[in-house]
């Protein structure tokens, strides 16, 4: 159920299989809807992003928007509900109407780490996440004129000057921060992590040479183009947009992952509504035109539907909590 469509070839094969599977699923769903006739969308759908505009969550929602309208004939209205690093939105989700007209973006590791730190008004299990549709793989980014040509250069500098290699990133106890801690451990280095408010600010700090490197995502490489160089990406295989950038695994560091993004319904939504939404997002995700836009933006596709969510989340919870506990971010 959980597949990373990492390279173009594998992606295409899986897509084909998935497409067939999905077609079957949609036919099956259509027939079951005909008999149950309860789950359908009526009018515009409210898609809440629990952050401000411009981040990866917003961009990927904006990319879904026209495909949703095209396939299902209704508008998808994106709105922002920032606050508490997403907590304000997620704490309010289950109080909203579960009729399927309102959905909300969810992010990993946020929805796992935050409730583990303190009471933030929601628990990881409270969220009715029905689909994980992409992730942004972790990546180390430097400016184009940086002396670090390869990851080995950075590691050598960090070993020679412990603590002096500064790396910007988005937020604390975030995907970037966890990646920094994990990599330091794998490489036996000591770098200094400087948290910024969002990826945009972290990239600005990098471009302005306030820090010597950035813990970012492949999306940064896609957006900044020739202005930056990625030293490694945390994927199983290389990203199709960056065939020249090695993976951490190739370089001997067992590191894959990043920030995962999905969508949730209020938990009052019926099983049929949840299934309907899972199928709709799956249909958008299998559209080659949508996939191309996502990959061009530096995202990596991911397909975890409502049936596979429980196993996926259980695995991520274990992984993230272990990392965060070892890093001293949670008790």
């Amino acid at each position, binding site marked *: 159920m959980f597949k990373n469509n990492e390279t173009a070839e594998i992606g295409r094969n899986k897509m084909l299989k998935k497409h067939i599977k999905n077609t079957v699923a949609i036919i099956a769903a259509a027939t079951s809807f005909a008999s149950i006739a309860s789950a359908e969308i009526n009018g515009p759908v409210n898609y809440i992003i629990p952050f401000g505009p411009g981040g990866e969550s917003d961009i990927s929602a904006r990319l879904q*928007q026209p495909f949703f309208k095209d396939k299902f004939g209704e508008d998808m209205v*994106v709105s922002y509900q920032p606050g*508490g690093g997403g907590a*304000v939105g997620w*704490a309010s989700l289950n109080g909203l109407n579960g009729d399927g007209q309102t959905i909300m973006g969810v992010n990993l590791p946020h929805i796992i780490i935050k409730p583990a730190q303190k009471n933030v008004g929601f628990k990881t299990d409270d969220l009715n996440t029905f689909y994980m549709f992409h992730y942004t793989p972790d990546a180390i980014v430097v400016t184009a004129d940086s002396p670090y040509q390869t990851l080995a250069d950075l590691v050598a500098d960090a070993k020679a000057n412990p603590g002096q290699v500064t790396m910007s990133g988005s*937020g604390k106890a975030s995907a970037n921060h966890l990646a920094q801690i994990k990599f330091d451990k794998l490489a036996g280095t000591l770098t200094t992590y*400087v948290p910024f408010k969002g990826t*945009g600010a972290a990239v600005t700090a990098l471009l302005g040479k306030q820090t010597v490197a950035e813990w970012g995502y492949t999306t940064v490489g896609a957006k900044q183009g020739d202005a930056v160089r990625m030293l490694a990406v945390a994927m199983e295989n290389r990203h199709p947009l960056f065939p020249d950038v090695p993976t951490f695994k190739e370089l001997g560091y067992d590191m894959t992952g990043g920030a995962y993004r999905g969508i949730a319904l209020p938990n009052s939504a019926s099983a049929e509504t949840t299934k309907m939404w899972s199928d709709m997002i799956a249909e958008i995700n299998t559209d080659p035109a949508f996939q191309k836009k996502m990959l061009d933006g530096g995202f990596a596709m991911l397909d975890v539907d409502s049936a596979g969510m429980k196993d996926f989340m259980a695995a991520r919870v274990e992984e993230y909590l272990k990392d965060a506990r070892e890093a001293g971010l949670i008790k």
Partner: protein
Amino acid sequence: MEFSHFLSAMTPFNIALALFGVVAGTVIGSIPGLTATMALAVLVPITFSMDPASALILLGAIYTGAIYGGAYAAILLNTPGTPSAIATTFDGYPMAKRGDGDLAVALACFSSVFGGMVGAIALLLLAPPLSKVALAFGPVEYFWLSIFGLSLIASLSNGNLMKGLAGGAFGMILSTVGVAEISADIRLTFGSQVMIGGFGVVGALIGLYCIPVLIDLVATPERHLKVEENVKSVRISEAFKIAMRSKFNLIRSSVVGTLVGILPGAGGSVAGLVAYSEAKRTGKDHQKFGEGEPDGIIATESANSATVGGGFIPTLVLGIPGTPPDAIVLGALLVQGVRTGPAMFSQSGSIVYTFIYGLIIATILMLPAGLLIGRYAYKSIVTIPKAVLVPTVGFMTIIGTFAIRNSVSDVIIMLCLGVFGWLIARFGFAASPIVLGLILGPIAEQGFVQGWTIGAATNNLIGMFFGRPISQAIIAFTLMTLILPIYLAYKKQPHKEV
């Protein structure tokens, strides 16, 4: 070559879009709580079916209009319609109270058009070099900029320095409530879920500025705004004359606005405040800032409108949004398949230049549209009886606050702050220092933490905070702003008890 882009921006369809955008933006911006960000977020899907340049023109026009529209509520209701208009309340509302509301609205329109043009022309001619300003500003510079902003409290509080500073400190404490932006700590919520999102700036603006006005309206028998017996039919020419007389103020404030707009994370509210304090610092003795001085409106409105063009500079050149509305425009471009970032000017030059000319056209259209809507807004606020005005505005404050993020907590916080603001106003505490603290607190905190982290890692803390040229310049300005009021008070001592 560039002329052809001008022609492609001048198609009837694009002009119609620009006009529609400006009008819609002005109306939305004039309603407290409805911000430019919100307007753009809702309207982005409309642009998917357009070509990228037209889409950008529409979005840019809405944005420009909304920043101007924020001035109406600031002048007529003492409530900034958008955070950018905070400093417009300082002189705008006193002007309206004494019966010069129509003049103030017309002045705001002229200043906004001028500032908008300066910002747009800077975007057209100087975008690539100016984008370097965004990169030159590191954490420490943001820290000092916010300290500079806080020092404005000294010059804004007109003799009530201690009360001003107390308000600023209180605002900074409020800004730390909730989940911290970069450290992710949860602070000062006392275990309550109501406070976890912290004190939003827009909600606080509505509460601290608008609610006290409403309470006073109900508590006093007088009319809301004084109306001249024989209303002069046209005050546009009068406004134009004043604006021309203050051309240096206009130019200086527009340049300040453009530069502050380029800094991601600063925004229109900071631009307006910096321009206001500069206008006040360089103002002549007879000018009474804070009591209805036209130059105050000129400074803030030209500066905040200039941030629109300024903010697009890092957005289009670096792919780094200068303000939240810019972030939405960036997203819309991505959906259109336009690659933003360093390659955009070279690869999608025709889209960029058509858009910039479109923005200029929209700014020019704002002149007739703004004056017309402004007159209408003024007339309706003046003529509506109190019994209708108060419930209408009261209703709007609640809807507006709720709409920010569909949160009932925000409404409760807004109302509490409002009553609190009214109470402390009895004791001479103003709302502005609190809001300043609320806006600048997080910028100062983040800049300090980041600067300290980097400085400590590189064993160069002193050099980090005091050795960088831009920081030194901002520190010098700060000292000047702090010392000036003390000097003036000293000079005036024989005449006035301190």
